[in-house]
């Protein structure tokens, strides 16, 4: 299990390749990348976080995922600071003997990272900066687990 919280960009492809490489214990690898989308004139995203709690919260979420599903690997990378359109905000990767576990764990990680990891997004758009509001459906997504 590996958790990285960093301001620097990461290479999604290279991380996927390294995560899947040399595995003979897992038949299924699932990865997710969250990218900055060019919505309505958005030019950048600023992500604030709570140093210390961030790593702690993500680690707890990843531990819960490895407790619930039969995983052979679990990686979470999440950036903070200023990101340009098209850049990767974060990624998760899961490896499991069977695909159902890898998919479920990746979706679980994403649902909890959305609403339980202390990050706050601010969109820098044509009309100035605006804090992103939490979506009711993201909170509701937690009830399925």
């Amino acid at each position, binding site marked *: 299990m590996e958790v990285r919280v960093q301001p620097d960009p990461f290479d999604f492809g290279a991380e996927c390749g390294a995560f899947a490489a040399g595995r003979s214990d897992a038949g299924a690898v699932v990865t997710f990348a969250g990218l900055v989308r060019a919505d309505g004139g958005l030019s950048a995203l600023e992500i604030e976080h*709570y140093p210390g709690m961030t790593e*702690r919260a993500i680690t707890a979420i990843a531990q819960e995922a490895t407790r619930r599903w039969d995983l052979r690997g679990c990686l979470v990378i999440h950036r903070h600071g200023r990101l340009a359109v098209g850049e990767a905000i974060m990624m998760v990767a899961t490896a499991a003997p069977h695909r159902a576990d890898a998919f479920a764990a990746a979706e679980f990680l994403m649902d909890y990272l959305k609403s*339980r*990891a*202390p*990050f*706050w997004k601010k969109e820098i758009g044509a009309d100035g900066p605006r*804090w992103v509001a939490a979506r009711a459906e993201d909170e509701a997504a937690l009830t399925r687990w």
Partner: protein
Amino acid sequence: MSLDVLYFAWLRERVGHGRERVETSAATVRDLVAELSARSDGHAAAFSDLAGLRVALDQDLAEFDAPLAGVREVAFFPPMTGG
């Protein structure tokens, strides 16, 4: 007791700073919020609607009714938008 109080995102912007040292005898988070709200108009604006806020005690999410005994760091912030 002495507490580190942290603010994030638009709470930080309303309060005007991200961290302050607070001397308090508040028993619960809710009591502490009442004291903090009296500090400035910015504080009052930040805490005007608790329903939209989250609190963490020593970096664990908590309820507003949670006791503060033994706590060293209290953080207030809006609902998280990670991922």
